C-alpha cells in the first residue's frame, strides 16, 4: 500500500518546502498551537483534509505544508501516521500494525423488528409455542428469525406442550438474561411498569394483561438436557410441518 520511498521524498520535500520558499514566503515556522490545531482537525475530520480547509481554520499565515511536515515527523515512529491521499491529509494506522485491525472491524448489527418482537414474546410468554407467537404477532414467524435467536443463544427449547400435536415450547436462556442485563426473568417489567415508562398506553382495554414470565408451565413436559439434544431435530421437522398446516 504505502511506498516508503515516496514517503521519504514527501517528508523531505515538506521539510525543505519552507526553507526553499523562505525568500518568497513570509511564513514563520508553524507555532506549537498551529500544529495542535491541525492535529485535532485531522483527527476529528470524517474525510481527508486539503490545504485550503486547514488554512481556513489555522491562524492566518500559517505555513500548511510545514505544519503537516511537523506532524508527520511527530508521528513518524508512532502507531498512527499522517498520510497524503490525493493532495489531502488524514490520520491512518501505521502499515506495520494493520494486521491488528484486520479481524476486529465489525459494525454492530441491528436486530430486525421481527426478531425483537419474537424474542420479546418468547421472554414474556414462555413457555410459548410457535403457533402462540404467531397468534400474538398476527403474522407468521419465519424460520430465519427463530434460527437467529437460537444462534445468538438467547432462546432454547423448553419442552413440549401437553396438547394435541405436542408442540415444542420456547423459552429464554441465561445468555439472554446476561445480554439484556436482567438478574432474573422475573425482572422483566410488568404491565404497570410498562405503562409507567410510557411504553404502553394507559387506556388499554381492561382485559389486557401481560403474563408473568416467572410462571412455570405446568402443562408442558420439560426437556432435560439430553432430551433437548434429541428434540432439536424433531423440532426442526415439526416446525416445518407446523408452518405448512
Amino acid at each position, binding site marked *: 500500500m504505502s511506498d516508503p520511498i515516496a514517503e521519504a521524498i514527501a517528508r523531505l520535500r515538506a521539510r525543505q518546502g519552507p526553507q526553499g520558499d523562505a525568500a518568497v514566503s513570509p511564513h514563520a515556522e508553524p507555532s506549537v498551537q498551529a500544529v495542535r490545531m491541525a492535529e485535532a482537525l485531522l483527527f476529528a475530520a470524517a474525510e481527508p483534509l486539503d490545504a485550503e480547509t486547514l488554512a481556513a481554520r489555522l491562524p492566518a499565515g500559517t505555513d500548511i505544508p510545514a505544519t503537516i511536515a511537523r506532524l508527520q515527523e511527530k508521528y513518524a515512529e508512532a502507531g498512527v501516521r499522517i498520510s497524503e491521499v490525493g493532495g489531502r491529509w488524514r490520520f491512518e494506522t501505521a502499515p506495520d500494525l494493520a494486521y491488528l485491525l484486520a479481524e476486529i472491524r465489525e459494525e*454492530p448489527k441491528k436486530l430486525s423488528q421481527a426478531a425483537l418482537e419474537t424474542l420479546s414474546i418468547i421472554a414474556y410468554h414462555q413457555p410459548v409455542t410457535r403457533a402462540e407467537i404467531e397468534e400474538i404477532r398476527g403474522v407468521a414467524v419465519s424460520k430465519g428469525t427463530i434460527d437467529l435467536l437460537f444462534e445468538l443463544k438467547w432462546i432454547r427449547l423448553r419442552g413440549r406442550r401437553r396438547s394435541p400435536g405436542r408442540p415444542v415450547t420456547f423459552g429464554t436462556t441465561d445468555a439472554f438474561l446476561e445480554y439484556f*442485563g436482567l438478574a432474573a426473568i422475573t425482572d422483566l417489567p410488568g404491565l404497570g411498569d410498562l405503562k409507567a*415508562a410510557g411504553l404502553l398506553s394507559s387506556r388499554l382495554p381492561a382485559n389486557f394483561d401481560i403474563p408473568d414470565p416467572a410462571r412455570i408451565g405446568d402443562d408442558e413436559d420439560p426437556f432435560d438436557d439430553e432430551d433437548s439434544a434429541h428434540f432439536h431435530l424433531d423440532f426442526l421437522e415439526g416446525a416445518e410441518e407446523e408452518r405448512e398446516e
Partner: protein
Amino acid sequence: MSDLFEEDVRFEAASDAEETGSALILDIEGWEGPLHLLLHLARKNKVDLAKISILALAEQYLVFIEQAREKRLDIAAEYLVMAAWLAYLKSRLLLPKPRPESDEPEPEMMAAALAFRLMRLDAMRAGGEALYERQLLKRDVFERGAPEGVRSIRAPQYEASLFDLLKAYAGTREKFAFSTYEPEKPKVYSLEVARARLSLLAKRLTGWERLDSLLPGDDELGPDAPPPASLMASSLLAALEITKDGEAALRQEAVYGPIWMRGQEGRS
C-alpha cells in the same frame, strides 16, 4: 336560568382583574409542584437552605397561595395539600413549648425534614446543571471522525437493548389490543324507528289491538334484533307520543294489564 350565581362570580372576577391589573402576576404553572414552588421561594430569600426558617417559608407559601386563590387561579390540589400541611406545621411550631401529650412527631422534626427535602431537590438540580458543565462529547471534545472500526471485544454484536425489546413487545401487544378491542354496541330499538312504524300502523288500525301484538317480529328485524325489552320500551314511548299528537288512542284496563291501541281515524 338558574346559574345566575355563577355568572355573578365570573363578573366579579373580571372586574377584579381590571381593578388590580397591576398586581402581582401569579403563574402557578411556572412550578412543577409545591416543592418546586417552595424551593423557588427559599431561593428568593437567598439564604442557606440549611439555615432557612421554615416558619417564614411556610408564611410566604401561604400568602402566595392566598393571593393565587383571590385571583381565582386554578390551583392544583397538591398545592392546597401542601398549604394545609404548612398551616398545620405553622400552628404546631407556634404553640408554646410544653405541648400537650401527643403521638405526633415534633414540629421541629417535620420542619427539618422539609428543609432536607428542599436541600435534596436543590442538590439534584445543581447536579444536573453540573453535568452540562462538563466536557461534553460532540460539544467540547470530539471522537475520531473516521474511525477504522475497532470495537471492544465485549461489545454486543447486536444493537439491541432491553428498552428496544420492551418497546417491541409493547408495540406488538398494543397494536393487537387496539385492533381487536371493539366495545359491543348496545342493541337498541330506536324511538324514531318505533314511532314511524306505529304511526303508519295507527292509520290502518280499525279497532283496538294489543300493543304487544303490534311489535315488530324477528322476520322484520333480521338477525341483529334488539332485545324484546327494548322493543317494548321504545314502542310504548312512541305510542304515547303519537297519542299525544292525536294520531292514536291508548288504553289500559288494569295495572300491569295489556295496553290497547287504536288509530284515531278508526274511531267511528
